């Protein structure tokens, strides 16, 4: 079966760049803490897409398994760290919510100077 069109590395990079842009935009514009966390996850996943794409296109006709899977392995660790970060974030927000009764980060303005 012929592919409808060739998907090259560039397409993946554009997708990941768009994901990263969406993540940064979310972080900068959202006021809800959970919304910002979603932005962070978008950014981390953009990095994951990059790793998978580079791995696929740099090593696509290799016979070696010693280095040919580095990018994939890295992505697994990114998933894990993203999960750990989400857990820490939820704990911090829960704490924050118990004191401020909101997850709107702009309500937190006690510290200034």
């Amino acid at each position, binding site marked *: 079966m012929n592919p409808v069109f*060739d998907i090259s590395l*560039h397409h993946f990079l554009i997708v990941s*760049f768009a994901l990263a842009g969406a993540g940064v935009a979310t972080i900068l514009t959202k006021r809800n803490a959970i919304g910002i966390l979603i932005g962070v996850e978008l950014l981390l996943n953009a990095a994951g897409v990059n790793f998978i794409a580079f791995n696929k296109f740099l090593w696509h006709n290799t016979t070696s398994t010693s280095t040919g899977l580095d990018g994939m392995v890295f992505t697994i660790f990114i998933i894990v760290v993203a999960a750990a970060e989400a857990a820490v974030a939820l704990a911090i927000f829960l704490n924050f919510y118990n004191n401020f009764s909101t997850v709107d980060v702009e309500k937190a303005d006690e510290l200034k100077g």
Partner: protein
Amino acid sequence: MILMLPVLAEASFNQFAVVGVLLLIAIVFGVGNLVISKLMGPSREGPIKGLVYESGMNPITPARRRFNVRFYVVAMTFLVFDVEIVFLYPWATTFPSLAQDSPLNVLFLGRMLFFVLTTVIAFLYAWRKGVFRYD
């Protein structure tokens, strides 16, 4: 070597025609159905008709309720096991390719069991911390 900007210029948009056609069909199908049912269907209004559930069930509370905090704690604990699978999966795909009588078999299994054991310790810790206590 790899700069992304020129790509958009050189990519022929004809490549995306198929995707465009698919999108078009989806939009036409969705909007078409709405329009047709609006035009051809009978329209009656009323308090009973406007209820949330057409089955006759009466809604009792607003849908947007706060979840109990303990669900978030359970969600965090779930993450531990969720993430464990991520590591088990690549291991599980390579493990069968080892030879039957290879001495590496025990080693590989032992490593993964050790890893699972660390998760069990996390589980015990959460238990002692009272995560699974509902009262």
